[in-house]
């Protein structure tokens, strides 16, 4: 092997005598020089830039701006999608607990506007139940969720009405009246229409109370509650404004409104009729006559 390596070195030495001819070398050199002149060095040496002390802050701010915009866009998208949701949908709680309250703080700047906004929302809650029923989606779970939503919205409306009872009693009474009528209309609707045998069976097996019964009971209780509050408010208004005394023994409710026509407008007349109707409803429900009487001397 060593002899062979020596032979290789010898061959290599001979090989190293292989060269370009003078003309080949000079021609190639000329070509390369031409190439170099046509392709000058194009890069510039990098210098260390002066870094602003605020660079990181602005970078952070920029990143946060992107995050903020992303959150806004994402939230807006969810909020927008939630507006179409119905009781039982995933986004429904976002709609009722986040989007609508926030919207209310923006669109309702006065107490009266707040009442109007909450009033619209309670109609919306009722409309949602109608929509569920039309789509044949009103099962036990959705019914219960819808009822809770109505109860919560009713509380919000009561709170809003309470805030204007002194400053705008007429609007408070009118709103109560309109809402009562709307509840009455929906109560009738559910009483007159069958909710479907399947839903009834399912609800009975689960809670032994049908959605229709639960809903109706809820509406009646809510109605009675509103009516009592309305009566209390009327009593207080009549006492304060017209120096009217409220005493025992009892007198007929109709006489009260006939005497105080100047203080109570036509809407109150309607309210009174509803009161009587509700009283009758309560009689039907409980099987006894309430001992409550509003008496006027």
């Amino acid at each position, binding site marked *: *092997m060593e002899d*062979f*390596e020596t*032979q*290789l*070195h010898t*061959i*290599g030495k*001979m*090989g*190293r005598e*292989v*060269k*370009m001819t003078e003309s*080949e*070398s000079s021609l*190639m*050199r000329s*070509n*390369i*020089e031409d*190439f*170099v002149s046509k*392709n*000058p*060095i*194009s*890069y510039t*040496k990098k210098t260390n830039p002066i870094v602003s002390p605020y660079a990181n802050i602005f970078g952070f701010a920029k990143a946060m701006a992107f995050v903020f915009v992303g959150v806004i866009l994402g939230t807006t998208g969810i909020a927008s999608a939630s507006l179409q949701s119905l009781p039982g949908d995933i986004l429904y709680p976002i709609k009722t607990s986040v989007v609508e309250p926030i919207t209310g703080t923006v669109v309702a700047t006065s107490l009266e506007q707040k009442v109007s906004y909450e009033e619209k929302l309670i109609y919306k809650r009722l409309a949602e139940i109608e929509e569920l029923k039309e789509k044949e989606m009103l099962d036990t779970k959705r019914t219960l969720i819808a009822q809770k939503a109505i109860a919560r919205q009713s509380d919000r409306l009561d709170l809003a009405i309470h805030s204007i009872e002194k400053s705008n009693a007429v609007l408070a009474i009118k709103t109560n009246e309109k809402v009562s009528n709307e509840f009455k209309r929906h109560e009738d609707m559910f009483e007159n229409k069958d909710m479907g045998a399947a839903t009834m069976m399912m609800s009975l097996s689960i809670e032994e109370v049908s959605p229709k019964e639960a809903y109706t009971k809820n509406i009646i209780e809510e109605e009675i509650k509103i009516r009592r509050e309305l009566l209390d408010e009327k009593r207080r208004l009549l006492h304060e404004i017209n120096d009217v005394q409220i005493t025992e023994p009892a007198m007929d409710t109709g006489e009260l409104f006939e005497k105080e026509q100047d203080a109570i407008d036509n809407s109150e007349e309607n309210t009174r009729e509803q009161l009587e109707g509700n009283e009758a409803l309560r009689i039907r429900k409980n099987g006894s006559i309430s001992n409550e009487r509003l008496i006027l001397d």
Partner: protein
Amino acid sequence: MNPDNKKTESLFMSAYDQYNDAIFRYCLFQVSNREQALDLTQDTFTKTWEYLARGGTIDNVKAFLYKIATNAIIDYRRKKKSSSLDALTDEGYDAPEENKVDHESQSDGEIVRRTLNELDEKYRDVLTMKYINELSVKEIAQSLGESENNVSVRIHRGIAKMKELLEQKELLG
């Protein structure tokens, strides 16, 4: 022109003057075609300049030039593979008279060079670099991107294989 750029150009042309024959020789032993070896040599230097012009830095010019030349040779072999002379010959192609080898008139050195070309590329590269171009193992390793130990093993095996081929041709005995 930027003085630094002028200096770079000057150094580059000095490298050409110093290594043009060595690169040409390396290419010639690899491709066995003078014209092709000239083209590969020129390509090696132009590609090196392109690298410098883009802002590249070179620590070892000699090793860098061999690396570029090796890559150029590999490209050439790939292109040639698709239209291999051997394949054409198998199909009945007759090479021109000037390319035919007169074995009787060949010197021992020419036979060894041709035997070198019969080796696998990985052995031929290292043997050419070591014995024709007199590169150190370290420089060969840098040029091929291999470890020095790997290059040493490859040289040893290449020599053994070449000896075996030459014994078959009864040149050694």
